[in-house]
Each structure stands twice: as C-alpha cells, then as structure tokens.
C-alpha cells in the first residue's frame, strides 16, 4: 500500500487511469472534469504510459471513438460531465448493447436549462436506461479504487459491459484530500490484460452493431437486461477481491449505524459523508437515526437495499435531481416501486436537495430529519427552496 499523500481528486482519477495500462483514451474537456482530461493528456504526452490520447472534437466523438477502440480489443477510458454526457446520450445504449467494455469517469454536474456548472446528479439520472453499470464514489479514495476496479469488472467475460464511475463535480473533483495510491505492481497483480470476447480483426471476421428486426428485438432486449442484472455477482466478487488485496471494502449498499434505527437517511455520492456526521450528532441527541448509502445504482441492488432498510419506520431518500412532472426524484421512485408489495414497508419521505451545487450541510440533514418526522404525506419536496 502506498503512503497517504495529498492530491486533487480530479488529478488522482487521471493518475489512477495511468496505473491501468490503458490503450486508448478519448476525452473532451468540460468543467468540472477538465482536470482529468488535462492531466491524463499530460501523462500520455510525458510518455509515462503507452497509450493513444485522441483529442476528439466533442463528447459524441469521444464515446464513439471509445466504442470503436473497445471493439478492436483495446482498454479504453473516457471522462465527461453533464452536457458532455448528454451529448453522448445517443451512443451510450449502443455501447452497452454491443457489450463493449469502456470505463467512464463522470463528474456529476447539473444539466443545463438554465446553464449551471455545479454539482448535482441530474446528468447521470438522465442516463438511467442506457444499460451501463453505474456506480457512485463517495470520496477521493473511492474514485481511485473504483476506477481501477472498473476495468477489471467491465472486461470480465461474465460482464462485458461499460461502466460509469460517478464522482461529484467540484465537491470531489476539485477537492485536495489525503489519498493512498496502490503501486504499479499491486495494480498489475489485481488487473490482468484484457482478453476480448471478439475483436474486429480481418483474420477472424465478425460483424458488430448489426441491424435488428422486430422478430428478434425483444429477445435482444432480454439478453441486455439479463446481462446487466447478472453483472452484480461479478461486481461483488471483484469488490471482494479488492478488499482482500487492499483492505478497503466495497458493497453495493453500505450502512452507517443503521442497525435498529427507526429513521434512515438514504444518500448517493459524497453527501453521504456529510450525512454521517449528521447521524452522529442526532444519535448523540438521542434520536434513532441511521444512514444507508447507495453505491451501486445499476444494476439496482434489490436484495441488498431491502436488507439495509428492513425494519425502519421512515426512510428519507435524498435525491440530487428532479424528474419533472413525475412522482418524485429518481432514487425515491425506484425504491418506492421496489418495496410496493412488501409487508411492513417504511414510510418514504423524498427530498430534492443540493440541486445545481446548493451546499448541503450537517445542519441541513438534521433539519430534514426533523421535517420528515412531521410530514404527513408521501409527496416529494424541494428542500430549502425559498418561498
């Protein structure tokens, strides 16, 4: 294990990619991911890694270049945020349908309308049905670890799916904090070379991305859905391997002091750390509160989430994005439909908070717990909106 050093998380993400022996990176800069793009291009330029850095002209091109490179058997990486991810939108489902491993770092930033460069989850929530594996990092260490793990997961023969590693834009990407880097030897031990299922090589001809007729489309969709659902087994297996080798453990759903708690807060991303401080303060004041942190968003960890929230009376779901004109934030609606048939299901209170970089403090979490206790119905609310 390396020693603890200070580094900006965006730069650290690029350094982590640099340890993974990538072949191709096609990255287009966008705030707040720009430090990842810049530093990765520096590493390639300095010759520290032997990779092709394609300076594409847009995110649409970057994801297309990654898909093409992955189809030839290369190990590929890209990174983006918000509008960039939206620009990739039409290609994302194609990459997962073609079962091409690509690892993408996404610096969560609000999508435009109106233009906003600060942190929220609307960018990734708008890609909900793209068929990619989607996971969230809570701090800089997790960004490093999950980036390296994702190459192994994506390229595994039982998975063969692209992965998005989410990190909160600015909140994480521009934060200097203590980090431990694994050594190159340790990463080499963990991450083998890619062995592609098939490659676009003239010696072994194969057609990828073919046209599909109504007669076969339903079956194709079932295959894609099943592949994503089945990938969870391998994700957990590889996370356990990482835990064994590096001593840092990752689970699809993590809990903090949640055992026996009457009220649970559910968070996604870096706000979970701030929430844990709020839970400590509330517990000191004698309240029965705990925290559940959703790390794996897709495939949705059905059993793990059910187990984590079992027995609580109130589940306060934090959504950092809005599904306009819907029934609530994306995370809350997903959970509500999960537990719809369950006996003794908790009351769900849904707050839309931290939108567009609105700061969420320890006091805010405490206030939300108090509001939730008094709330009579299960409609969603914009927390902190000035009225």
């Amino acid at each position, binding site marked *: 294990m390396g020693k*603890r*050093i*200070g580094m900006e998380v965006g730069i650290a993400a690029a350094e982590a990619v640099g340890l993974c022996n990538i072949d191709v990176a096609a990255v287009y800069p966008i705030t707040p991911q720009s430090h990842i793009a810049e530093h990765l291009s520096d590493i390639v330029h300095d010759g520290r890694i032997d990779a092709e850095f394609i300076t594409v002209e847009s995110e649409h091109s970057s994801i297309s270049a990654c898909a093409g490179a992955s189809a030839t058997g290369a190990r590929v990486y890209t990174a983006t945020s918000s509008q960039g991810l939206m620009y990739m939108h039409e290609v994302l489902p194609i990459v997962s349908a073609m079962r091409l491993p690509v690892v993408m770092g996404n610096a969560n930033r609000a999508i435009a309308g109106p233009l906003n*460069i600060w*942190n929220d989850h609307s960018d990734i929530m708008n890609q909900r049905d793209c068929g990619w594996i989607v996971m969230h990092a809570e701090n800089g260490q997790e960004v490093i670890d999950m980036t390296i793990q994702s190459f192994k997961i994506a390229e595994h023969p039982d998975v063969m799916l692209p992965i998005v590693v989410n990190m909160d834009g600015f909140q994480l990407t521009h934060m*200097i904090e*203590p980090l431990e880097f694994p050594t190159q030897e340790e990463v080499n031990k963990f991450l083998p070379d890619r062995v592609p299922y098939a490659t676009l090589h003239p010696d072994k001809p194969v057609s990828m991305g073919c046209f599909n007729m109504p007669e076969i489309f339903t079956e194709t969709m079932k295959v894609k859905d099943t592949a994503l659902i089945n990938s969870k087994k391998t994700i957990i297996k590889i996370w356990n391997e990482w835990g064994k080798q590096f001593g840092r453990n990752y689970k699809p759903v993590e809990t903090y002091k949640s055992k026996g708690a009457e009220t649970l807060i559910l968070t996604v991303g870096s706000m979970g*750390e701030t929430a844990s401080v709020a839970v400590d303060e509330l517990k000191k004041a004698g309240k029965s509160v705990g925290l559940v942190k959703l790390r794996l968003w897709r495939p949705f960890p059905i059993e793990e989430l059910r187990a984590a929230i079992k027995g609580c009376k109130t589940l306060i779901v934090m959504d950092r994005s809005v599904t306009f004109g819907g029934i609530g934030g994306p995370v809350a609606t997903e959970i509500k439909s999960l537990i719809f048939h369950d006996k003794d299901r908790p009351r769900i209170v849904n707050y839309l908070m931290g939108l567009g970089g609105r700061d969420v*403090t320890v006091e805010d979490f405490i206030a939300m717990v108090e509001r939730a206790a008094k709330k009579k119905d299960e409609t969603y609310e914009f927390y902190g909106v000035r009225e």
Partner: protein
Amino acid sequence: MIEIRWHGRGGQGAVTSVELLALAAIEEGKYAQGFPAFGPERRGAPVMAYNRVSEKPIKIRSGIYHPDVVVVLDPSLVGLVNVTDGLKPEGLLIVNTSKPAETLREQLKYKGKLATVDATFIAREELGVPIANTTMLGAVMKATKVLKLESLNEPLDERFGKIANKNKNALKRAYNDVKLAK
C-alpha cells in the same frame, strides 16, 4: 478540527496556498481538505478558498461558514468583501497590510484577535513580485500553529522547483514578522 478561509483575488495564488497547506498537513500525517470556492474565476476578481485540518478523518464536505481563521491576501479586499463574515468570536483574522492594526480595527469595526504582516513588501523583496500567497503561509503558520513550518518544505519544492528557496525565505520572514495586535 480547524477551518480556515482565505480571501484573495484571482491570480494571486489563494488556491495554491490552500493546496500547499493541505499537502503539508497530509505530509505530517494529519487529515486535510483544500478547495476553492467552486466556480469560474477570472484574474482580479475576489475569490475565496478553504482549508480544513484535523487529526481525525474529515467527513464534512460542505462549505465552511464559521471559520476559525480568516486570511486576507490582498489589502484592497478589506472593506470591499465582508472578510469577517461568519468568523467565530474566538477566531483569528490575519491580514496582509501595510497599515497599522488599529486602523484596520477601526475600518472593520472588529474587536477579535487580529494579526498583521506586510506580506506584499516581503514578497517584493524576496521574490521580486507582489504575489504574497506563500509569504502569508508563513504568517498563518506562526499565528495559528496549525502545522510545523518544516512540513511546507516538500510541497514548496515540488510546486516551485528552482524558486522554492526564495519562497521559503519569504515564508520565514513573514513567520518572524507577523504581529498579533492588541
């Protein structure tokens, strides 16, 4: 845990100071955060940057609203920006200024702990440019005793290479010259 807010102007190195302080703290085995007030910046505009330093892992990721220490890199910001906003009653204000402390107290109507140093003057002499960020780091180290002065050496060497020594000299002078006002 100590929370520090820095005030500067874009291009004066407030973010660099914050970075160096965080790196030095992590070198010492402490936990630290260093981050700018996020957003697009431009040269000359007032900016803020933040540090948290603690013996234990820092879990709070929100902004800093009640700093223990406020550092002002550019004297022209006093009066323009509310530099004492949120400063804890027992907190410390450190200002880069050539004016005497009493004048500042009058101007800010501030009665709390105050330290001053003419970092711009020192920077001009030691570095040849009026960029006072590393100089002020010296003043911060003396006034807060948050870290050992030596812990800054490696981050300074990494960041500044050939001109690291000049920065270290400026730092040491401010360390010695900073005065806690009555």
